[in-house]
């Protein structure tokens, strides 16, 4: 008994200390970044006549003449994971671009870290040991953890980081769409425009602690509370359809829901079905550019918007690498790609009923010769 008591005391001490210290830690609510992304959402690209996956917002470039190498090149890529459909479609985009440019690319080496930081560090080490890479592209699993490995790579190779960033300035360029705050802003502004003050919003989130998702919700929360809307709940669905449906059903019993804010579109259709099954009208909803959501939106004539975190960033990474190895300057140290949202006006352009349900419409891949077969 005494031991149990001691143990409880120790545990609470440890947790208490830890918790107190945690209060001083930074969080995902950076007003400077918020303002920057808000501006970038509506900014015009510097090269509007180029295809969208080559456009960049801002005019800073980096010189790459010293990295020029004769083709054919070996491109290396350390992938964080292919554990969700967005990444699966993304990798296909990369492979399609490599196939189109195969005259210049003799080898495309890909390592997959299966979602583990530890493994990705080991993978990058492996790629460096192999000494075959002319350039290294990295899609980091998490921001801080990969920094030492990236710095090690920068010392010997040109490095392109895309999707998620790292906390070092050594890579040539960080290629990314506008960002998480932008996604949240687009979704929340739509809700604020369509729901009168005092309305109830249910926020459905995938996972806690993922920086690219936390920024979406933090931005959305600002805009929704500023517009006088109540966030009745912010629930984590884990990306699970059944759980999403259960949560929505339970919240419907608690009170009226005027809008659903989602930080990713994976379970949007499940949320819509929860209303359908209950015989209730579907409220204002934000999703993402997955085909199943877009098709349901059109079929049920919903009031919705699909902000995107465009999948063409994967394609841009390959193109950026090729530009570096040809000595052409690329936007840097950051290459900010446009991040359009799909609205009721542009919906028809993006719907394609023959594509799989979790295909991302904003993939920028329609002009590939093997489209749509590769993505089916």
């Amino acid at each position, binding site marked *: 008994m005494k*031991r*149990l008591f001691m*143990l409880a005391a*120790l*545990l609470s001490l*440890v*947790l208490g*200390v*830890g*918790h107190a*210290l*945690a*209060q*001083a*830690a*930074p*969080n*995902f609510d950076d007003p400077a970044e918020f303002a920057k992304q808000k501006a970038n959402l509506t900014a015009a690209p510097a090269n509007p006549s180029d295809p969208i996956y080559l456009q960049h917002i801002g005019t800073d470039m980096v010189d790459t003449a010293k990295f020029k190498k004769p083709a054919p090149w070996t491109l290396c890529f350390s*992938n964080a*994971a*292919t554990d969700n459909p967005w990444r699966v479609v993304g990798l296909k985009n990369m492979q399609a671009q490599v196939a189109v440019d195969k005259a210049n690319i003799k080898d495309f*080496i*890909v*390592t*997959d870290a*299966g*979602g*583990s*930081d*530890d*493994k990705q*560090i*080991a*993978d990058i*080490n*492996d790629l460096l*040991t*192999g*000494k*075959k890479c002319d350039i290294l592209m990295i899609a980091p*699993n*998490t921001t*801080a*953890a990969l*920094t*030492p490995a990236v710095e090690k790579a920068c010392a010997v190779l040109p490095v392109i980081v895309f999707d998620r960033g790292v906390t070092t300035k050594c890579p040539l360029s960080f290629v990314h769409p506008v960002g998480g705050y932008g996604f949240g802003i687009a979704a929340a502004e739509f809700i604020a425009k369509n729901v009168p003050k005092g309305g109830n919003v249910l926020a459905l989130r995938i996972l*806690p*602690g993922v*920086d690219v998702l*936390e920024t979406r919700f933090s931005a959305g929360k600002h805009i929704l509370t500023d517009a006088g809307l109540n966030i009745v709940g912010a629930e984590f669905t884990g990306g699970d359809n059944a759980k999403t449906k259960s949560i929505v059903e339970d919240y419907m019993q608690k009170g009226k829901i005027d809008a659903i804010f989602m930080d990713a579109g994976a379970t949007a259709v499940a949320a819509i079905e929860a209303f359908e099954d209950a015989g209730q009208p579907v409220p204002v909803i934000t999703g993402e550019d997955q085909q199943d959501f877009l098709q349901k939106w059109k079929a049920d004539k919903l009031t919705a918007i699909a902000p995107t975190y465009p999948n063409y960033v994967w394609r841009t990474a390959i193109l950026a690498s090729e530009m570096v190895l040809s000595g052409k300057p690329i936007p840097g140290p950051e290459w900010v790609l446009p991040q359009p949202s799909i609205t009721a006006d542009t919906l028809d352009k993006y719907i394609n009923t023959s594509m799989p349900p979790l295909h991302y419409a904003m993939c920028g891949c329609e002009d590939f010769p093997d489209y749509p077969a590769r993505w089916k």
Partner: protein
Amino acid sequence: MSLAETVRRPTVSFAQRFERLAPLALLVVAVAIYAAIALGSGQPQYMSFDGVVGVANRSIALGITAVGQTFVILLGSIDISVANLISAAAVLASVIMNGNPAMIVPAIAAVLVLGFVVGLANGLVIARLEVNPLIATLGMSLIVQGALSAFISNFAGAVPDAFQYFAYGTVGPLPFSLLFYAVLVLLAWVVLRFTKFGSDIYSVGGNVDAARLAGIHTNRIIIRAHIVCSMLAAVAGLYLASRLKSGAPWIGKDGVYDLESIAVTVIGGTILAGGRGGIWGTVAGVLIFSLIDAIFNLTGTDAFLKQVLRGVIIVAAVAFYAVRSKRIVA
């Protein structure tokens, strides 16, 4: 041979020797495949000193955790709370250090205390409340996860550069982490082989009731072994905090350290029912996993096919020597 000599020298049957050496045989096969692929595909740089050290260094976190897991599996127990505990340890270390090298020692102390407390809790629930170890540690895993969630919305703390020596420092040509691991394994082997605690673990694992009747304080042994396991998981968390320069609440789950540490221990010849096996088998198991990963990278295997093959390999590796066993297996 006189009668006295026969009685004094216990014969080790071929079956027992096979079971003991089987993990080593598997390791040799894995090394051979790795070498063959490295040389055959024209990438001999992977057989260089750097390459080989790279393979060995791949799975330090898993290795440290597996040493602890071996202690409890030898008892006939199990611990699936290690993954969340690793995350908790990394987050706690990162938060306490908060970028300040002076706080490294307090952080290490706090993390070890955390490991001690969780191990004590596990051991008490299993020994005193007699809850099945799978359920007890599953419950503890959920409780630790709950505690972790409290830190999740803040990307907690920062690891100072000085602490990175643990994971990235070198002593001569070898990484410090590899040396640390080697010393740890040696210590564990000494404890298991030469101390009373070690032999008690084997006794309790072999037959709990017989051990109790023989005068061993089985509850104390169970609690101590779980404390060892959890403290080692905490050390693995420290290592990861150093390697990833941050403490993130999901690194334990992402690395699947719970199921993998069990898998490598069993592949290494320690049976789940307890009483048989040892540290060297576990080390072989960890190396086999590293080699499998390295081989997959060398051959550029598709990520999904990797999954399929991993599952088959785990079962095949255990079946390799389990099939000869005469025990009834559930």
